[in-house]
């Protein structure tokens, strides 16, 4: 399994990388949505994208709509991980095609449990 971590903060990418690496994901990173799209178009084939909302160049919401517009990427699981926590914005992201949503701040357990809900991590991990 491969996770693409998309966040403009290196500190946040580092935190997320440590969590999903611990769950045996290979990881790749991008600093904004366009960089992530470029990597995917170049053949990176992620099973999971962890996506910040507010980023330079291309924000996470636009990235989600762009991924969802391409049928070749329909199997990619999209999870927002963002401080954007207005209820209306969460509804918007889900409507655009995000599968799950984690609000910053989060604890590592929260990421693990969401990935369990998505069926990307075995239930036994936390047991």
């Amino acid at each position, binding site marked *: 399994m491969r996770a693409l971590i998309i966040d403009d903060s290196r500190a946040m990418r580092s935190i997320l990388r440590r969590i999903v690496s611990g769950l045996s994901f290979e990881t790749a990173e991008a600093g904004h949505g366009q960089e992530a799209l470029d990597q995917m178009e170049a053949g990176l084939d992620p099973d999971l994208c962890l996506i910040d909302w507010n980023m330079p160049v291309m924000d996470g919401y636009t990235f989600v709509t762009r991924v969802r517009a391409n049928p070749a990427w329909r199997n990619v699981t999209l999870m927002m991980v963002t401080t954007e926590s207005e209820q209306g914005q969460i*509804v918007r992201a889900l409507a655009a095609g995000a599968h799950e949503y984690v*609000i910053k701040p989060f604890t590592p357990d*929260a990421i693990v*449990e969401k990935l369990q809900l998505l*069926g990307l991590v075995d*239930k036994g991990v936390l047991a």
Partner: protein
Amino acid sequence: MRLGVTMAPASFQQIAALVLRETSIIYEPRKEYLVEARLHPLAVQAGCSSVDQYVALVGVDAQERRKAIDALTINETSWFRDNAPYQAFTETMLPALMAGRTERRHISIWSAACSSGQEAYSIAMLLDQHLPAGWTADILATDVSTAMLARVEAGRYSQVEMNRGLPATSLVKYFTRAGSEWQVVPALRDMVRTRHLNLADSYIGIGTFDLVLLRNVLIYFDQPTRHDILRRIHPHVAGDGYLLLGSSETTLDMPADLTALWDREQLGRVQAHRPAGATNRPVHGLSATASPISAALTGA
């Protein structure tokens, strides 16, 4: 009152061993500060002059033991905790219960030791999604801690708690923003009522339930009390109803009279206890007839 500054290493070891044994949560020695900070208010409440004295009390008082473990496992509670029991609820238990209640059209559930209410409200969300129009449900949430009951009634949860295992679709459907917290919508709050109850005391007047959730609480009691609870809870589970224990609790040894009282039934990855010898229960009633309600939690 100003309490002692630092708890004794022996007290820390004692409480860390207790928490590890009962919850599998590890408190490392560098977390002494945290243990002390969380036990301090309980020590004051119990009239102890130090956290050490309180730890000694926890050693002999089951009620304080439960409070201490609650305090030390705060934020460890997830929505749809362990997932599998909730999947078994929507796939198996609820269809079977509905098949047996086509006239009354009511489902009654007891969340015993409800803590901050995530279990009761998780079930309420599933009932909202899966009960057809014309059906009603009520959920009784009981706990020994009145502070916890107040939290359940308020139905308010912090941002950090909201991230724990709650599908985002349920977050936007069943909660609204309330300052820095989120609050359960009135429709679900109306389904849940609370009552103060120590499980070691009498259950008179509690009623009978189609499903009793007694998960991860027996571990707080000594063995005779555990057996006593399983004996006394029996009349409060409907003949065709279910009792769910925590996954580590289903393997607890039971004396002969208790094994005669309860049948064990495997529902997917979950083991349920059902009143033994019930006559009004179809033997394999559900697998052949009921169309399984799709699981809410597969996330597919």
